[in-house]
């Protein structure tokens, strides 16, 4: 006995269209996820670049990035103590923001070039009765 199905040649386009629809429905989320990942990666790169640029502008770098950031509290503490002194406590931010002039650079060079002649140093130590090892 032959079991005849009702599916005949007429079902071919129907099966094809159904398959295509199912395929699209199944793969669409994958495409969307891939696109989202791509966009996310691009956004991340843009963010990284922006942060790097901002840090460069601020002069931040990432030097002490792994350490506790300099807090406002410590700056405030310095400001509080600054008012108590004749010249005041030295504030790191102010010093860090200074741009050395050529005269300042010359003073660094002078500092580097300064040396006490060996003979004079020996005499200095002898005068002080120092006996270095």
């Amino acid at each position, binding site marked *: 006995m032959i079991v005849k199905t009702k599916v005949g040649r007429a079902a071919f386009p129907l*099966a094809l269209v159904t398959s295509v629809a199912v395929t699209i429905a199944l793969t669409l989320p994958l*495409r969307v996820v891939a696109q989202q990942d791509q966009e996310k990666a691009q956004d991340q790169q843009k963010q990284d670049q922006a942060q790097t640029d901002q840090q460069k502008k601020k002069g931040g770098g990432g030097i002490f990035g792994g350490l506790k950031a300099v807090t406002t509290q410590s700056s405030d503490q310095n400001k509080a103590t600054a008012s108590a002194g004749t010249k005041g406590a030295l504030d790191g931010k102010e010093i860090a923001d200074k741009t050395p002039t050529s005269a300042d650079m010359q003073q*660094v060079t002078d500092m580097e070039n300064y040396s006490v002649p060996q003979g004079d140093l020996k005499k200095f130590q002898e005068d002080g009765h120092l006996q270095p090892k």
Partner: protein
Amino acid sequence: MTPNLRLRTSEWAPWVAGILACAALSAPAMGQFGGFKKALDKVQSDQRLKKIEEASKPISVEQERDIGREVAAKMIAAIHVYRNDPLTRYVNEVGATVSVQSERQDIQYHFAVLDSNDVNAFSAPGGYVFITLGALQLCQDESELAGVLAHEVGHIAAKHVIHEIEDANKKGAAASALGSTVGDLTKNAPGSAAYQNAIQNIAKNIIINLFNKGLPAKDEYDADQRGVRYAHAAGYPAGGLERFLGAFESSTAKAQSNITITHPPVKDRNERMQQLIVQQNWQDADRPQLEDRYATLTAMLKSKSGS
């Protein structure tokens, strides 16, 4: 009677075609998804590795000197050097006497006096040591000055600041894909604008950190121990720094100085130094403290503080 379940070609062909079409259509999407993800992961991983590698390179002596030079220039620009030839010479003589005792002799040590009443002393990588007028005014004798300078030499010899930068960069580079300044330093040629920019950024961070936060307590204790050793090896009494800190603790200058913010408590520091001195049997009563020489060579400071 067995039923014949065989299907005709016209019956199964549409389903096979449909399955094949499904496979054909989904393959690029699957491939695109998997391939893209893999490629993206690889690029991100490579970038991260490269940054970690660049940031993990140790800072060379030349780079250290360039960083120190920039720090010194900014300090001089902000605070100014106190120009007095006999005093500069004296501080350099004491500085040279103790620095020659340090383990680190691949750099030269340079000493200068800063025109500030704040009681403090600083060191920058590469061998730059500064002491303020305020600290010189507080010192009672040459052995105290030697102790203070030897402590600063200790920071440079142990590369405390340099290690801080290297450690922070390793952590920073590993934690994110952000640009790293040490990476910028190592990948650019000395003298280039990018290299100079990196030097300036590092110098800024060092200064802010040193003045507003300070080094870790363990580094300060280490510099104290080194300072005691160098001063003692130079022929001074080992307790010079301890006496200076004791005087600082009971002075009015304490309230005005950054030292209380940037350093561990004086009591702890002095206890540790005293332990070392006792352990090593360095309580030499006969060693010169050189009060008279100090008083003579710093006499001009008394008139300055009185004015």
